[in-house]
């Protein structure tokens, strides 16, 4: 398992089909965080990495039966806990 510098886990550290709980959104634009929340990615939400697409550039996540695709750059900023 790869760890980020601070020892924190983010979405990109998860394996395919692994589930984790969202802890924080560090360094993401508040407007974008709002959009994530609208779609069900909120603090304490349980997300599953369904797939990594386009050479691992995009992450397909599942939360509450909704499937959402975000970029790696943004996924890296979403801290999670297994």
């Amino acid at each position, binding site marked *: 398992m790869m760890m980020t510098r601070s020892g924190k886990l983010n979405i990109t550290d998860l394996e395919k089909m692994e589930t984790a709980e969202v802890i*924080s959104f560090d360094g993401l634009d508040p407007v974008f965080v709002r959009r994530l929340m609208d779609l069900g990615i909120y603090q304490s939400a349980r997300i599953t990495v369904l797939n990594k697409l386009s050479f691992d550039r995009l992450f397909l996540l599942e939360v509450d039966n909704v499937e*959402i695709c975000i970029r790696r750059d*943004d996924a890296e900023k979403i801290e999670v806990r297994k």
Partner: protein
Amino acid sequence: MIFLLAGNPNVGKSTFFNYMTQSHVHVGNYSGVTVEKRVHHIKHYEGANFVDLPGTYNVSPSSEDEGVVTYSLLNESYNGIVNIIDSTHLKRNLHLTLQLLELGAPTMLVLNMKDSLRNDGYVIDTKKLAKKLNTNAISISARNHDKEQQLEIVDSIKNMQAFKAIELEYHPVVKWGIQRIHDLLRYDTLQVKKKWLALQLLEGNEGIYQFLDLAKREKIEEVIKEVETRIIKEDVALSLKGAIFNTRRAFIEEVVNECLIKVEEKEHSKYFNQKIDRFMTHPALGLPIFFLVMLSIYQVSFGGFLGLGSFLTGYFELFWDEVLVRYVGEFLTLIDISGFTYGLIIDGVLAGVGGVLVFLPQIVVLFFLLALLEGTGYMARVAIVMDRFLSKFGFNGKSIVPMITGLGCTVPAIMATRTIANKKERLLTILTIPFISCSARLPIYVIFISIFFDQYRAFVMMGIYLLGIMVTLLSAKLFSLSFFKGAGSNFILEMPPYRLPQLRTILYQAFEKARRFVKKAGTFILVGSIILWLLSNIGPGGINIAQEDSFLSIASSFVAPIFTPLGFGNWQATSSLVSGFLAKEVVVSSLEILYMGDIASGFSTLSALTYVVFASLYVPCISAVATIRSETASNKWTIFSMVYPFVVAYIVALVVRLIFGLFI
């Protein structure tokens, strides 16, 4: 009676709207299809109208199309709100519902997609849900087009009861903030509850400030700041928005646990269908698949082999020339009309309008196929495939939606950019989207291809389209390196399930396109053809003169030399391009009139190519420019949107002439 129709994006709101009214608004299987609000009469309910609002997750907007919702709630007079909910995503949908219920206006929940939910093995206890939320509710399936259900819905709307606004137990700090803002608004007269406004302001709904006086804004912002600081310091949530969101979420969790009942054990099938999507979004295969799909669409619409569109157009043309024009001509001769009037009708009106109208079958076929593609949910996969590519040019994968819309018409494409939250990125898209070839430019390509490049129809056609796309991308790159530095924004895409599109809806969409096309031919193009014919047949020497002595010829001859380096510096080509500013279809009408049906005589193969290239890229039509003006609210960018394409078209056409001049 007016009822506002509100709901999340892609929950079947437009399908419901079409089903309950006599209209057919555009339906696509992705978010952000409805960008304007539309009003239509409700079936079986005399004197009642639905206002279809753009889909939104929140009352407070995070992109411009969602701002319409706040504005309508605050400003419009309405008798009730009808909230369309996707039953299969109840939890997420209820966030908007709660905000509407907090408003305290008469509201009815329409729990759509009852059938899909049942297929997943669940049902909603509608009565219990209505009671829990203190509102009216009904479960339906808008895809079933039966009248009984319609009457049932109308009945519930008629009996919509007004309930007291729902009040959630927000955190004490949030409540304190609501009270403070409420006190600040004490003396204002507003049509909605002040507590609701206060809560919306705390959530960051900037759209509300425009209804308040400026002096208050500062004080309110101070309160919001204080609440936010306390929320973070006391570790209630990560942000103020988060705190409000969490309270709603907890409440929703409780409601859903009680009202969503499992009736059958079923494996939840993933929307992202692993098997199909492994190919559709494959890093290497995805793009070729997309091109193949598009190429086959163009082949069927315009090509020879399997070319349904061209086949139909051929017969249409035959009918127009051999039957209509011939018999009208004979009739005119019979009633002794000749000379000037005969020319105006046969060589002006019928040639001009007919020259454009013959493309109707091809355009209908193209739009039928594009609507079919949109309805399936494939476009979301294309957005995934294209994101990597498009992000390099300062776009994101989602820009593909306005781009595909732009293939139809630039005007709705410019409006579709409202779903792009980032301002810079939106402006960048608005300024570059006119390069995508709209359907009005199609007749120009078809005419020239059939005369000069007949063997390579689908390829030349695809080439022109690709050129438009390339210019769009390169311009975007140029802008993102200059005017809009750092425009790169986030990308978030919801994966819709593959759905079987409804034939009915698609047919109506194609029909709607046809109707607009015919309408345009009967108005803009008709008037344009008459004016053009008159100007080219009247001159300082009176009527019945040689076209070379006409007013049009004299005026255009001043401008024409500009185009000499491109190979078409004559007055006919110049006039056609100038009149094309009215509507791009007029280009073909003009050519038909000015060359008196013999366009081939005016061009060489090379100058035909440069002309087509120039015509595909130059200044957007007047409607597009007007839309750019209203969407950007900037004279500077509006002027830029006319000058830049002219320069680009000129340079590209010149380059094409130099390169192809070596071969042709």
